[in-house]
């Protein structure tokens, strides 16, 4: 096996292990920290896919921002977190569903033979970020999704500020 394959195997084992620990941990803060490990593992997976831009964005957006938002939310709502069991009555059924889905998909993927199209390595001059940048603002490319993304972000900002903002007279 090549070195890259070993990197992939180790990274994916860590990712999946951290994801399992995340689901299994009782304290929400531990779950968040395990989620951080899983996200880091996914960043390494992106590196093996030669998508450095997304590996770095994974770090920047998921760990740097989303995870911190989750930690703040956990801190804001901590009072009720330690009480009660962490899984609901559907847990066994859910485990069954998830297990069946994964087994079935894995079976399909192992049996599935990719057609023998020859693969070619890409040239050294290849710069994916420039391509992405051009496509995002190209009127025939993805200009509309790009603008819609900004409207979506605006809507999320306004909506979340409106919902979370403590109005007078209410609040703890």
């Amino acid at each position: 096996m090549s070195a890259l394959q070993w990197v992939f195997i180790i990274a994916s084992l860590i990712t999946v292990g951290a994801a399992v620990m995340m689901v299994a941990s009782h304290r929400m803060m531990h779950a968040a920290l395990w989620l951080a490990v899983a996200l880091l593992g996914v960043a390494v997976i992106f590196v093996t896919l030669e998508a450095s831009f997304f590996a770095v964005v994974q770090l920047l957006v998921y760990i740097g921002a989303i995870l911190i938002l989750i930690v703040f939310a956990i801190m804001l709502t901590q009072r009720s977190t330690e009480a009660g069991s962490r899984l609901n009555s559907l847990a066994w059924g859910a485990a069954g569903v998830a297990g069946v889905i994964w087994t079935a998909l894995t079976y399909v993927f192992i049996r599935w033979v990719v057609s023998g199209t020859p693969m070619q390595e890409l040239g050294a001059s290849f710069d994916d970020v420039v391509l992405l940048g051009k496509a995002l603002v190209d009127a025939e490319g993805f200009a509309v999704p790009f603008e819609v993304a900004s409207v979506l972000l605006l809507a999320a900002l306004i909506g979340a500020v409106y919902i979370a903002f403590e109005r007078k007279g209410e609040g703890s």
Partner: protein
Amino acid sequence: MIPLSWYLILSAALFSIGLFAVLARRHAIAILMGIELMLNAVNVNLLAFWHYWSQVKGAPQVNGMVFAAMIFVLAAAETAVALALIISAYRRHHTVVVDEMSLLKG
């Protein structure tokens, strides 16, 4: 050279774990973390297909990258609003456990 199926199996595993968290956990934020995991699985899939499709074509393709970027935007917006809702619900009901919340009609 890593076979494409390895990525798909990993992504399926992450997706299933996320799905389990969404179905089985009682804490609203834990459910949200499950959703994050599922979105990550989707991104692994998208970028894996992007990588192999680019190699088949012999030139970098742009679609997969744009989709992955949009998933990041989506994840950010979804987390922001969902956590705001959770915080707001916590302020009214003093709980973040989903099945308790649905009983209390605010």
